[in-house]
């Protein structure tokens, strides 16, 4: 993993962590509902676990596939998927539907997994993973190499999620302790639209690199 790859993973982790829909706001709500900071803190690890599962799935799949197949086809496919998904996110009026708020840790992780997946959090890592130089090794091109090939993807997802958790925790605590939820009215920038734009841009960059 190069320094640039790492930097990109960290940046995307911060971007995901900042998004209120990815979990920090739910943690704040839990803290306020129960009137104790511990409830806020307890909500964050399950949120991160769900996010990790969602991102790792895509990342592992990409790096494993890449270790056994021609890179260009994968890149083109990945880029096309990104552009398509990003456009759908941009144009679709639908939003995530979920009614319950009294969630166990397992339900919270499940919620986070669904939320991250519906937003295409893992897909956003695609160009980063595809741009990373192919690891040197004699087994590339053999199907048997696939499980080992998934490893870089898992590492990338882990790094990304750690940063996401750090940023989400910081934002949650600052809002809970200092700013108050009133800040949402002014500062809740439409991340969804930006998010969709990032997905499309990432797809275009990936496609351009492949051609």
């Amino acid at each position, binding site marked *: 993993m190069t320094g640039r790859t790492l930097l990109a993973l960290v940046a995307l982790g911060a971007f995901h962590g900042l998004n209120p829909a990815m979990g920090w706001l739910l943690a704040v709500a839990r803290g306020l*509902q129960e*009137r104790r900071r511990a409830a806020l803190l307890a909500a964050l690890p399950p949120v991160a676990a769900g996010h990790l599962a969602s991102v790792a799935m895509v990342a592992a799949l990409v790096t494993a596939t890449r270790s056994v197949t021609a890179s260009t086809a994968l890149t083109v496919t990945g880029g096309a998927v990104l552009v398509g998904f990003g456009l759908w996110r941009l144009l679709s009026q639908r*939003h995530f539907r*979920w*009614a319950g708020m*009294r969630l166990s840790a397992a339900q919270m992780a499940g919620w986070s997994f669904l939320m991250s997946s519906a937003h295409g959090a893992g897909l956003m890592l695609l160009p980063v993973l595809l741009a990373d130089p192919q690891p040197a090794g004699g087994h590339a091109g053999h199907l048997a190499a696939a499980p080992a090939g998934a490893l870089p993807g898992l590492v990338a997802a882990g790094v990304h999620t750690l940063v996401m958790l750090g940023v989400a925790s910081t934002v949650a605590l600052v809002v809970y302790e200092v700013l108050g939820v*009133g800040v949402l009215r002014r500062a809740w920038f*439409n991340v969804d*639209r930006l998010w969709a734009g990032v997905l499309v841009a990432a797809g275009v960059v990936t496609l351009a690199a492949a051609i």
Partner: protein
Amino acid sequence: MTRWTPDPSFYPSPREAATAPAEKLAYVAAFDRAAQRPDAIVVLDTDPESADYGRVVGWTDLPHTGDELHHFGWNACSSALCPTAPHPHVERRYLIVPGLRSSRIHVFDTRPDPRTPQLVKVIGAQELAEKSGYSRPHTVHCGPDGIYLSALGGVDGAEGPGGIAVLDHTTFAVRGAWEADRGPQFLAYDVWWHLTQDVLVTSEWGTPSMIEDGIVGELLLGRKYGHAIHFWDLAKRRHVQRVDLGDQYQMALELRPAHDPTRSYGFVGVVISVEDLSASVWLWHRDGAGADAPWTVTRVIDIPAEPADPADLPDLLKPFGAVPPLVTDIDLSVDDRFLYVSCWGTGELRQYDVSDPFHPVLVGSVRLGGIAARTAHPAAPDEPLAGGPQMVEISRDGRRVYVSNSLYGSWDDQFYPDGVGAWLAKLDVDPERGGLTPDVRFFPRGAEFRGLRVHQTRLQGGDASSDSYCFP
């Protein structure tokens, strides 16, 4: 189209909502009892600086006749900020307006011109019936995952069960019946919730045949109208508990849960006790500590009937020689401090300080209309008023209260047989000590409403009964 920043009328908490700017316009559901002319959404100017203050400044007819507009609500509200399914960049823009009699649901767009709502969609009774199995749509609430719409009746001639239909947030298409398991619930009326506690509450009025041609004396004395409230698991959509108020307490209608999401109580109004014609307000709360303790109710307000000369009474009430208060609407201020109670029979709006919800204190009262009293408004002291304070709506800052005077077409005719008229009054509130004063500059009535009767009022940007909050 979505916004870049949250709709400014969304507030994370009731405390912040109470700082909202004053409404400049109010929307009123108006209907033609004769069903000869279209019902309408009427727009009132509520800006005291305006030359048209207190007057009708907008009017949009419905496309059909005979809808009987009643309650209505917004497509989106502060619940859009709730953290599990946030969608804060939608606009509070569309009014969802059901026809209680026709079962048609209308969607009006208030954005192009707030004074002239434009009809953008009609969902026919057929679609509502086919997709949800319900008819007679009533209460509208903007929920985290869709628009919740209570309905009183069943379909294909079935009286019930009534229940809740869910509409899609953006297309307004009917998604289906909400209930996964309704348990013993059959009658329906109002719906609201404790959003952060996964609790939904419903109340009971009657089936279509029990109400549409007027109140039925035998059914009332037979204690057949609704007298229970139901608690549900909001996430699992399952019935959890039925709490019976006692069958003498007929018609448990309006549900007003605390706006503070950390509190677990609310108020429900009961129209009439068949034992002494009194009305009552009940508090629902957990029976014991813990988030899963069972629910129970405590009667916290009793309002007695008032003796009257039978000559002043409609046929229905002559044998009793008394006027029942008929509490048909209640409303809780956004700060959960004042509860307003409409006594449509005696013609009185009462204001209770419910800082201690178990012990309400009467702090304000205004008399207008009434079956026997016919109290005039100070702005027109020579005009005896029919009807009484009925639908009551409170501004978000709690300083202004609006009341309209029609209950329900056929019931108006029974209790006010010489004509219920049409009027809408605004009362100014002393937010510190309580107390109500009619605003003499604000009293649209009679001809201003072009022969239509007026029911629910909704305030621009939201009001005390339109929004729910996920943060304390």
